[in-house]
């Protein structure tokens, strides 16, 4: 049944030996390609995760939307008053930021467990490991889509139109492939070192406060260039800025691209080195 590397050749040949040198990388790339070819499986599993989580509940996945809406309203009114912000400007900013942050923290915390949670599947049949990472990305994208409703409502209430929507298409693609890389990298680390999930959890909390999510980047005047040291900042800025009608400056785009390349290089190094050991560890 398991059609070995996802190929449909009449007679697939699986030749397994301990890997050395470039074969590591080659096998890792084949795994990513095989996983992407089986996108229907990854999507189905991710969708089932959401469907089964809310089975029997009246609102179902709409609970995601409701809880985000409550959070945006609560934080928006409190911080808007604290910072003396104009709600017409602050609430749209906050809704985008919180929804995106919810996605990032979902990808990161689920990422640590993509393989450990799928232990049963991994030991039952040979599958590209990338399938499990795609499942996690799809699950979090579905959550994100539910939360999108909050942003739309906020924009509608203040009668705002999102600007530069077309510019978002390549940015969304970049976010998608970065999410996949992050899931793979954290999945490998989290399978080998079981303390990774709590470490990531506390790092995320710090990142939440140092990244302009609840506060606007414009609040920082001196030392603005140091903000680029935080990888989340440029990646958030290229997605949020254009919608808010503020196209980020060139250095932000370069930083976002640079961090993405670094992320993929690190991921491929980790994944190619440790892929064949994952089944032993889960």
């Amino acid at each position, binding site marked *: 049944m398991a059609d070995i590397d996802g190929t449909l050749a009449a007679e697939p040949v699986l030749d397994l030996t301990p890997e050395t040198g470039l074969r590591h990388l080659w096998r890792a790339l084949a795994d990513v390609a095989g996983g992407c070819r089986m996108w*229907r499986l990854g999507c189905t599993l991710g969708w089932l995760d959401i469907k089964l989580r809310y089975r029997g509940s009246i609102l179902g996945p709409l609970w995601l939307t409701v809880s985000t809406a409550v959070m945006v309203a609560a934080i928006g009114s409190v911080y808007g008053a604290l910072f003396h912000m104009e709600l017409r400007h602050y609430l749209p900013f906050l809704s985008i930021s919180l929804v995106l942050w919810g996605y990032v923290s979902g990808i990161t915390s689920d990422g640590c467990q993509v393989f450990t949670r799928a232990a*049963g599947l991994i030991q039952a049949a040979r599958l590209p490991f990338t399938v499990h990472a795609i499942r996690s990305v799809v699950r979090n994208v579905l959550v994100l889509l539910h939360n999108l409703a909050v942003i739309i409502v906020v924009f509608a209430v203040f009668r705002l139109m999102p600007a530069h929507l077309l510019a978002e298409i390549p940015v969304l693609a970049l976010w998608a492939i970065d999410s996949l890389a992050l899931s793979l990298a954290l999945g490998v680390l989290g399978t080998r070192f079981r303390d990774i999930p709590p470490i990531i959890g506390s790092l995320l909390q710090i990142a939440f406060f140092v990244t302009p999510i609840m506060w606007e980047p414009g609040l920082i005047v001196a030392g603005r260039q140091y903000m680029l040291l935080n990888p989340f900042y440029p990646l958030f800025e290229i997605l949020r800025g254009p919608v808010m009608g503020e196209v980020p400056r060139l250095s932000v785009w370069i930083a976002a691209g640079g961090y993405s390349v670094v992320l993929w290089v690190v991921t491929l190094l980790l994944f190619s080195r440790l892929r064949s050991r994952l089944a032993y560890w889960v």
Partner: protein
Amino acid sequence: MAGIDVRDLRIAFPLYHGNARSLKKRLGRAISGRLEHDARDRVVVRALNGVSFSLRPGERLGLIGRNGAGKTTLLRALAGIYEPVEGRVTIRGRVGALLDTNLGMIGELTGRENIRLRCLFTGMAADAIAQVERDVQAFAELGAFLDLPIRTYSSGMQVRLAFGLATATRPQILLMDEWFMAGDAAFMGRARARLEGLVSGAEILVISTHQPDILATWCTRVLWMDQGHIRMDGPPDVVLPAYLGLEKAGT
């Protein structure tokens, strides 16, 4: 032509015992010289060592041995789940692995939904999925239960569904752990007819079991595993008496 070639296969599981499976040990190793010595001689469980054999089309191999002899590990290695630590495993042909009763099934989904999900695992096209659905429906004889969540099934019904699915896709190489014996007598008869249909082509069967009578009737060759090694390899009427004789002497 389907085939399996195993050369000097070694599979070993690292045991990161206690809290050794953590960053603390790694960091400690980097800091202190003494810990490095402790951490380096990590315990490794040798599950398989120096295993070599080849299978040609038509062969039905039975794996026999005590608990912990390495039967399930060998099956997983043949399925490509555990990649060799040393040695080489070459498998030509589409592999079907019945190693886990659940087979990635989800208890909340109906039998029909699970069939479709299972087909996605193999990357099947829509018309092929419909064909598998009909085939499994006919074989498993679940009736109206096919549209109920499988957590409402009896274990026998679950086995019929899983067995029907794994054999519906006509793998060239079928790997089987012994769990499928859970079926009732009538099912065993039909399971056997279906399996023999699969094996009669140029297909290969590898089955692991504790039950000598299954091996005597189903297999053309028996591999006696003992502590990760091959103790004996030959036709059932040679290997089985030797194995049973030793088991008797041992107890």
